């Protein structure tokens, strides 16, 4: 349905709230000046994102019967968009809360930071709520540019600036390649709206060689954003140097949006060309899982290890994309649903970990080595408990969100193998499970350091975890367990898997 401006604005209300809150924060910071209590700005930012989440819930019902196509079809607000948008908003809220204490400790508690997080989230939301390739590009750029700046936010630190620069250079390069891919789609079909593209592909008017080139280039560009091998090499450096809470945001919200766009572009736009991408997705997934897990084993910096872990998780999620190329309708549905479930499951655990990492980081950017986590449970029992939950979830041990998510994806891959009779999916599943095996090794090492090792000579003062940090760790730990125990555990809440099911494009 297309309608009035009011309806259009209502449909994109979640993004609108984010953007308006961002502007309000910037103006608050600029005009009210130095004497300002920044808590007001944070509250404003939170208000915007919570309202955004609220609108997401309000829009869900109407969107599930007939999706909104507003702004002359440039924005498509369907359950898929709302689902991913909800994940993005959740990540935003948690990032905002955990950043307050972090920034305040370094004396950098300024409105610009929150505004940039909000604008970045706006861009990501715009990205997933459209079928128009060009809007995807614009949303991506808004989000990316805000993140380039956020990565360099601690500009007194060498690492932060270097992280920003590396992200900016490689990101701009990858964006150009992605845009060239979009231009190729435009060339092949004369339109950049995915529905139009699908129609052109169906009618056979599209130029095959150009479409295939476009497919490869788009996979390069988006593969960069979600960080899969061999387009991942920026990720460890950028993740390590960026402020920890920003890293958390990058590893979760950006990935969610990136995978959302990948699913949308691949399933809606490329229909009959997908089987041609099967082999390449296969090798990308295998290379990602093996390389990332192996290199992660060799890391001693927890933040950097988490960066490789996030690359590895992108590999597991890529397995689900591979299923889409195999012409197995049953397994494909399961794969998309599994992938959609994977994103929030992975996001809550990862955000929890990065919140704890940010809390343990000191003024000089130390406290990130594995040795610094030795005997942590003595000093911070609650945080250690939370960390254990997150680590087990990331390692895929039941009954946590990570296990359930992984099981869904692996299950989809294997049932794809049974359905198609091909051995490729089975090989992929074996590699995936092998990868989780290696993964557990370095994940559990964190636990061992925290619980088994004696704390080192301790020159750092004990700090009571700030309210925000405790809150985020508690919420993410509860969500990790809740998602893992399964959808129907009490509280009358609707189930995420059910939402993921309804959100399938």
């Amino acid at each position: 349905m297309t309608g009035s401006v009011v309806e259009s604005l209502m449909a994109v209300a979640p993004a609108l709230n984010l953007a308006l809150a961002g502007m309000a924060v910037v103006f608050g910071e600029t005009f009210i000046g130095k004497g300002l209590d920044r808590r007001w700005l944070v509250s404003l930012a939170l208000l915007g994102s919570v309202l955004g989440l609220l609108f997401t819930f309000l829009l869900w019902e109407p969107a599930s019967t007939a999706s909104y196509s507003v702004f002359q079809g440039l924005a498509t607000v369907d359950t898929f968009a709302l689902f991913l948008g909800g994940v993005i908003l959740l990540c935003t809220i948690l990032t905002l809360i955990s950043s307050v204490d972090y920034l305040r400790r370094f004396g950098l508690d300024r409105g610009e930071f929150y505004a940039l997080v909000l604008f970045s989230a706006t861009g990501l939301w715009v990205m997933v709520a459209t079928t128009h390739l060009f809007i995807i590009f614009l949303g991506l750029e808004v989000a990316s540019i805000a993140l380039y700046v956020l990565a360099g936010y601690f500009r007194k630190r060498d690492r932060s600036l270097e992280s920003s620069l590396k992200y900016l250079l490689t990101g701009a390069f990858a964006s150009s390649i992605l845009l060239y891919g979009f231009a190729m789609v435009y060339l092949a079909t004369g339109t950049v709206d995915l529905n139009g593209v699908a129609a052109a592909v169906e009618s056979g008017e599209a130029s095959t060689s150009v479409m295939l080139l476009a497919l490869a280039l788009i996979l390069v560009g988006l593969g960069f954003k979600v960080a899969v091998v061999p387009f991942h090499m920026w990720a460890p450096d950028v993740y390590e140097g960026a402020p920890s809470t920003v890293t958390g945001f990058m590893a979760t919200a950006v990935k969610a949006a990136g995978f959302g766009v990948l699913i949308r572009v691949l399933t809606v736009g490329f229909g009959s060309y997908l089987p041609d991408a099967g082999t390449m997705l296969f090798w990308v997934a295998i290379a990602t899982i093996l390389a990332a897990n192996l290199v992660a084993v060799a890391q001693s910096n927890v933040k950097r290890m988490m960066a490789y872990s996030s690359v590895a998780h992108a590999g597991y999620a890529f397995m689900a994309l591979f299923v889409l190329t195999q012409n197995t309708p049953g397994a494909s549905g399961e794969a998309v649903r599994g992938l959609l479930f994977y994103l929030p499951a992975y996001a809550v655990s990862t955000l929890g970990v990065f919140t704890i990492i940010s809390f343990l980081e000191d003024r000089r950017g130390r406290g990130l080595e594995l040795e610094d986590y030795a005997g942590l449970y003595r000093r911070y029992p609650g945080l250690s408990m939370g960390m254990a939950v997150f680590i087990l979830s990331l390692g895929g041990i039941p009954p946590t969100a990570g296990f359930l998510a992984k099981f869904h994806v692996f299950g989809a891959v294997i049932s794809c193998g049974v359905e198609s009779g091909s051995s490729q999916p089975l090989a992929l599943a074996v590699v995936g499970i092998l990868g989780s095996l290696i993964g557990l090794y370095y994940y559990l090492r964190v636990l061992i350091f925290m619980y088994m090792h004696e704390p080192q000579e301790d020159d750092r003062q004990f700090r009571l975890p700030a309210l925000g940090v405790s809150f985020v760790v508690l919420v993410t730990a509860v969500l990790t367990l809740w998602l893992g125990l399964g959808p129907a555990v009490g509280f009358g809440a609707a189930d995420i898997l059910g939402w993921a099911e309804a959100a399938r494009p």
Partner: protein
Amino acid sequence: MESLLFWFFSVIAVVSAVLMVCFRNPLMGALSLAISFLATAGLFALMTGPFVAIMQVLVYAGAIMVLVIFVIMLLRADEASLDRERIGPFRFALGALIGLPFGGFLLVAVGNFGGKVEAATSALPPDFGSMKSFGRMLFNQYMYPFEIVSILLLVAIIGVVVLAKRDF
């Protein structure tokens, strides 16, 4: 006549782009890039895009390149860094390793694009590419991306302040 112009602009655009990569002094590179942009603007004009061509000259070749040159002057590259920029055979081979196959793929794919096309300018709407029709389309149909770009520019402003303002 017009196809001569095409060759003229194309050769200038490509040659000055190559020069941009080859000049060791970034200032010379920036000037070559500006020339390449101007030539591209000419190509835009050939394709019935007068308004976009003007924007190309004003925004790209004008504003952005001036900004770049300004920054280059500000940071003054020394002789040592110019020396390190020398492209030896190994680096050249690396470039060729990437450039040749990738370029080959791109050229083969777009060169063999055999779709149906609108050849004659008369087949297009009469005001195709004019500033008026451009503005009307931008502010009606494409209001949404326009708004997004406005946020983008706001983000860029904040970003520059955060990163480069002295007393932040």
